[in-house]
């Protein structure tokens, strides 16, 4: 292939044009849906490809934004983009996992056009929300070349504690039969606090005794599961699933806003789950902590070269404690949300979540060797896993095959990611 060089401005312009066309076309078709009577071709389109016009418009807007950024941003001005065999191969390897995901989505759309619905996109975002919070917690422990196996069990602990104190007064099978109605925040704080206590223990074992996080958190994980099961087995509950959750608590995980119904009571727009903005806020906070605070910089430093961090006077003990406590706070919070979403809990809740979260982080470019990882990568890692899971379910791939595919994706993604570094 011959090499070509395109100036940055022209490169941006191409994206602006493509984005504008998509946005205009998609938007027009979408808006025509509101014209009365609806034109025949619009009806056919919505029958054949469902919400594709809206989605195309959204994608168009993103592409347009990217193009505008390239076109206007001073950082890129004057530069140019090379098209050569090398730069394209580099681009493909750098973004292999995203591209594979796009290919998968296209395939699923062909097999099952109903996949192209806004409802599906919103479902995927909702399902990603709690996973993202857990992944953001675990990423701190991965950034210092550690890990946290206790994440899933902490989710379960928080779910059990919070639901056990937030049952309806008239529910027949109350965990604490005589407990009055308490302010909703109290059990939530208790649940998260319990997790943070165990987070302290994790941090203490790792920071004080220099224990490898793998084994320290493994031990704590077992302790948490035991403790949670003991609590769950308290009379009169005796290990029965906790139900009858108060509606104000369930609201926290189930509420949807911007739901639009037409006159016939049919849902036109399914609404955004409240979990989506919650996850966004958490993501923003974590991004801030990682990039704009001394603590965040110290996390990267310890992960990058622990000895050098010690010599530089970084308080390694405090930082590691902070990492595990912050992580446990996020797990606890995710556990509360999960309990609210499903309006119930058992001691089995959250089992194995830590492995999903670690896999999502690693696929999103967080290095297990520490020091490397970005919030944006973690978001895409989590989304990739949710899309795959949701998509495969959507086209009726058996759960067993889903497992096989998931495993292959982890292996391939990490292999590609590592080959990137090996060349250096």
């Amino acid at each position: 292939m011959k090499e070509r060089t395109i100036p940055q401005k022209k490169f941006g312009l191409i994206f602006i044009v493509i984005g504008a066309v998509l946005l205009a076309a998609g938007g027009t078709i979408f808006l025509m849906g509101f014209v009365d009577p609806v034109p025949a071709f619009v009806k056919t389109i919505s029958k054949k490809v469902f919400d594709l016009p809206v989605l195309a418009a959204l994608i168009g807007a993103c592409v347009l934004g990217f193009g505008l950024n390239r076109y206007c941003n001073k950082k890129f001005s004057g530069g140019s983009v090379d098209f050569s065999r090398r730069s394209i191969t580099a681009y493909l390897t750098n973004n292999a996992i995203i591209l594979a995901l796009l290919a998968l989505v296209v395939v699923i759309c062909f097999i099952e056009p109903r996949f192209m619905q806004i409802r599906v996109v919103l479902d995927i975002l909702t399902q990603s929300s709690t996973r993202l919070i857990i992944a953001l917690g675990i990423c701190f422990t991965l950034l210092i070349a550690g890990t946290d196996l206790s994440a899933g069990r902490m989710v379960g602990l928080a779910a059990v504690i919070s639901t056990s104190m937030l049952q309806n007064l008239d529910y027949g099978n109350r965990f604490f039969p005589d407990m009055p109605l308490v302010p909703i925040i109290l059990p939530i704080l208790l649940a998260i606090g319990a997790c943070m206590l165990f987070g302290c223990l994790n941090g203490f074992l790792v920071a004080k005794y220099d224990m490898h996080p793998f084994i320290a958190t493994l031990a704590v994980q077992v302790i948490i599961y035991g403790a949670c099961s003991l609590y769950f087995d308290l009379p009169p509950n005796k290990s029965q699933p906790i139900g009858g959750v108060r509606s104000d608590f369930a609201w926290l995980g189930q509420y949807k806003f911007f739901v639009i119904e037409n006159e016939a009571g049919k849902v036109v727009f399914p609404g955004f789950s409240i979990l989506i903005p919650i996850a966004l806020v958490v993501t923003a906070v974590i991004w801030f902590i990682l990039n704009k605070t001394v603590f965040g910089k110290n996390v990267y430093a310890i992960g990058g070269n622990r000895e050098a961090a010690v010599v530089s006077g970084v308080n390694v003990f405090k930082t590691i404690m902070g990492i595990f406590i912050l992580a446990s706070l996020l797990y606890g919070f995710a556990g509360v949300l999960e309990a609210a979403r499903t309006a119930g809990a058992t001691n089995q809740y959250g089992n194995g979540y830590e492995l999903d979260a670690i896999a999502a982080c690693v696929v999103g470019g967080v290095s297990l060797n520490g020091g490397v990882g970005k919030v944006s990568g973690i978001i895409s890692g989590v989304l990739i896993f949710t899309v795959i899971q949701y998509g495969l379910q959507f086209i009726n791939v058996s759960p067993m095959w889903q497992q096989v595919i998931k495993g292959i994706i982890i292996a391939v993604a990490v292999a590609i990611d590592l080959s990137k570094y090996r060349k250096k």
Partner: protein
Amino acid sequence: MGEYLLEMNHITKVFPGVKALDDVTLKVRPGTVHALMGENGAGKSTLMKCLFGIYHEDGGEIILDGKREVINSSKQALDLGVSMIHQELHPIRYRPVMENIWLGRFPMKGIAVDKKAMIQKTKDLFREVGLDVDPEVLAGELSASTLQLVEIARSVSYNSKIIIMDEPTSSLTDNETEHLFKIINKLRSEGRSIIYISHKMEEILRIADEVTIMRDGQYVGTWPASELTTDLIINRMVGRDMTNRFPPKTYTPSDEVVLKVENLCSPLAKSFQQVSFELHRGEILGIGGLVGAQRTELVEALFGLREIQSGSVTKDGERFAVKSVRDAKKHGFALLTEERRATGVFGILSVLDNTVIASQKNYATKGVLHQKQRAEAAQESCRKLNVKTPSLEALMQNLSGGNQQKVLIARWLLTQPDILILDEPTRGIDVGAKYEIYTIMHDLIAQGKSIIMISSEMPELLGMADRVMVMCEGRVSGFLDRDRFDQVEVMRLATQFAS
């Protein structure tokens, strides 16, 4: 076989920015002990690593037994009859001694390892070298000196014609050294040759037949040991002219004592003991000594990285206990460590992050960073030190060694220290960057800061320091003022307690 068993002719080896070996020649006769001598960094180990296939020479030829050989791996070297005892031992601690010895060439019985044969072979080998060790004991349970002897036995087991011994007696007692000499004499009488690297003059004069001396990566000459004396060797090791490698000095230190260290002792018996010295404002105090003199351990203890058992540290008249790096920083200490890569550089982080890591808190309120202040401080500090980097966002690992070192100095200057401890500040960086670092050091003392500099490079030590403290085996063996600077004297002090 010709006159020589081994000829290494015109060997040249270049590392990025450093010419480690420059036209070096080494000729070893069969059945002799050939001593290889030189200061730290003279290139002895590099030369031996070329022979043993760890490095590949960039120029020159190696002739073994009259045949020209290109040695690409240690395995090939062993097959050609060259074995090596390394200066630092890396035994597999949790495996038996015998497995350490026969690793890679276990006696086999079909597809299984023949344990019985291995035990027998090990016993035979130990008998041959007069070593009384159970072949099945774990390597980690042996003392450093026994391990050293095991290592020597292992090199014998290869039936090599040439055995390289790099500081074999560094962890041996006098008795064990005698034992080693017996083994060496036996090997010599069998017609094998030994290349013997050591700093200990007396040993060399006792055991060696011929001595080759190297200096700054160059060949000085080869003499029969009988014609040499300790003084002659030292003179030839250090005998070089001091050219204009150092910027002129314009500042003289004041009499004010900034730091007073008294009777500092490490809890480890083999580490620094009873170290006392004073540091004046605006002074560069050089610490000289051989590898293993515990200089690094001493300064790391002063910086809170190692434990101090007894003794006192007084700064500006105030006595204080150094318990952690943060203590030391608070009292105005800064340490540029010896191992830049291991304990200094964050390779995968940006130059900006690397520059401000030690002073991060100055650019933050309640833990939240002021990005602009932080970037400006880094920019300013890097500009002052003339750091060459494409941008502050560039990854540290992409910078040259000299620039990395300047970033690390910039890092410490941002902590506003009074006392800078520089441990081998110019190791592994090119001549130009060295000169820049020397200039920076002069600027700093002109600003009233004080510097403690460890250096194993004699010219650097004498060229830069106002006063030199020489250490030997953990103790201070003497001080030299600038008007008494003499390479031979430093070398004598550095080997004072050595047997």
